[in-house]
């Protein structure tokens, strides 16, 4: 009897887990009315919070955010199950209802988020977080993560950072921002800076031409960047190993470029590839740190290769097409995303399964799509696309190519994004 009760409790306590992959996946229709606030003075704050939460839920690929114009419930409807008329929410097609409430106490904001299943009319989750007023977007990201975790049992991507380069008439700068492209901080400013990568401790390494030729720099906690690798040759495309203890990059001179691995501070570099007259570049680590994917033209055209991070023979991974580049290894280990130029000279994104070599197309007929980078949980891919107006901007999509969403952009062209922890 005791045993059976325990099993019953276990089943009752189980939330529905959204399985994100597979052909049968359908985003969950979810209603998210504007957050409730205690007074009108907090309207601006509430709008900022709302903007961040809405973007998180709409862009993560789990949910179909229902159009607020269709809502039937009063905007002031309460946040407890007993004060909600659930038939109004089922009539707009919502499976789940998310209500947020903000309360302001001096310089602090408290956010409460509740999740209801509409059919059962039941509160499934209540999450509360506090932050300072300036960090109200962060507050929204935290609450969105609680919701993501409830549905997937995985850590959500909403508090992670991305780094990217943006070209303006003044130059090309490297920025570090929230995953939604907001709250950006300039890391490498002045001259030409590109190819940023975020280490596990949040450091940003990038390639900079400030000395006239490309060298590698690293910035910790958004402090002034320090030299990481400045040899007599051209250093580009640094990548931190998943444990943060090593870096891989390529060094070029003349017609050839080789992959090197060094300690995280740039010391004791070791050459991994040795193919004179050929280019080896764009290294990306496997999640266990044992292998590297990179691009090489040793077979005549740029293709993705895989080799041990200790050196040795490289194995060619891609065989389709004659121009495959910018590999990014999924933190889940199973896939490598890359850019390929197809027969119409358009760049598009693909993934290739590391074990089976199965190639999946992610983008098509929407301008040039390049430079994929997986989210730390491997569920989303950040990339650049020229689909809106011909200038490359940042986009996210799910790892199988669904739900492609543009990040809010400022003027300038965006390139070489990297998604970090």
């Amino acid at each position: 009897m005791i045993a059976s009760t325990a099993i019953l409790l276990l089943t009752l306590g189980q939330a529905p887990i959204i399985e994100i992959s597979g052909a049968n996946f359908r985003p969950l229709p979810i209603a998210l009315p504007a957050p409730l606030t205690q007074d009108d003075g907090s309207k601006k704050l509430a709008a900022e919070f709302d903007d961040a939460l809405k973007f998180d839920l709409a862009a993560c690929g789990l949910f179909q955010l229902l159009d607020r114009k269709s809502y039937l419930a009063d905007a002031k409807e309460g946040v407890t199950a007993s004060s909600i008329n659930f038939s109004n929410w089922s009539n707009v097609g919502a499976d789940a209802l998310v209500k947020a409430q903000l309360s302001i106490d001096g310089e602090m904001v408290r956010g409460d988020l509740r999740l209801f299943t509409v059919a059962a009319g039941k509160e499934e989750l209540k999450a509360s977080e506090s932050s300072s007023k300036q960090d109200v977007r962060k507050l929204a990201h935290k609450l969105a993560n609680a919701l993501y975790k409830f549905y997937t049992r995985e850590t959500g991507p909403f508090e992670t950072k991305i780094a990217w380069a943006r070209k303006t008439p003044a130059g090309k700068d490297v920025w570090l921002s929230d995953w939604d492209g907001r709250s950006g901080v300039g890391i490498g400013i002045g001259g030409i800076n590109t190819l940023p990568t975020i280490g596990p401790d949040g450091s940003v390494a990038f390639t900079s031409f400030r000395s006239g030729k490309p060298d590698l720099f690293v910035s910790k906690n958004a402090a002034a960047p320090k030299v990481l690798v400045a040899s007599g040759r051209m250093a580009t495309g640094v990548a931190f190993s998943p444990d943060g203890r090593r870096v891989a990059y390529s060094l070029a001179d003349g017609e050839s470029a080789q992959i090197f691995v060094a300690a995280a501070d740039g010391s004791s570099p070791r050459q991994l590839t040795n193919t004179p007259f050929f280019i080896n570049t764009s290294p990306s680590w496997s999640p266990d740190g044992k292998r590297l994917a990179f691009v090489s033209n040793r077979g005549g055209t740029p293709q993705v290769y895989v080799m041990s991070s200790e050196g040795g023979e490289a194995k060619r991974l891609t065989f389709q097409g004659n121009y495959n580049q910018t590999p990014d290894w999924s933190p889940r280990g199973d896939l490598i995303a890359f850019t390929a130029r197809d027969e119409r000279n358009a760049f598009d994104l693909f993934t290739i399964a590391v074990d089976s070599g199965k190639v999946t197309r992610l983008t098509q007929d929407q301008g040039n799509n390049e430079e994929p980078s997986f989210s730390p949980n491997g569920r989303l891919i950040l990339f650049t696309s020229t689909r809106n107006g011909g200038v490359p901007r940042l986009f996210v999509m799910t790892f199988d190519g669904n739900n492609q969403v543009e990040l809010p952009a400022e003027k300038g062209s965006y390139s070489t994004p990297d998604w970090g922890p």
Partner: protein
Amino acid sequence: MGMSSGGGGHGRTTLSEINVTPMVDVMLVLLIIFMVTAPLIQQGVKVNLPETKAAPVEANDKKIVITVDVKKRVFIGETEVPLGELEEKLKTNAKAQADKEVYLHADRDLAYGIVVEVMASAQRAGITNVGMITDPVGAGRSQKEKDKR
């Protein structure tokens, strides 16, 4: 048929009536209309339903019900929506757009015009099927039974 005779050979005389024939034609072509029995539909809004002998369709209580009560107030479910906003509400409604079907739950004493206006709004919002909720003849229940409760 001479529904709007317009004055024949007498030159310019004002048309004193609106010719609804083309409008009804278009509506009947674009909308699939069927009868739904009331007993399966439980609604919060009180309405006297018309009685019909037409063979009714089994109602599906998961569909959106648009109610028009005797005071010409329009409801989606139990929530009143101004008639002017009905089209947008349905156009943005994910469920209505997925089903392409709504049930119309209108009072038997209403003027035909208001019912047609509601149906036209639904049709402009992309709804293709409208189920007319009726009482089967003889069942004679809806209002009387509700009154008893």
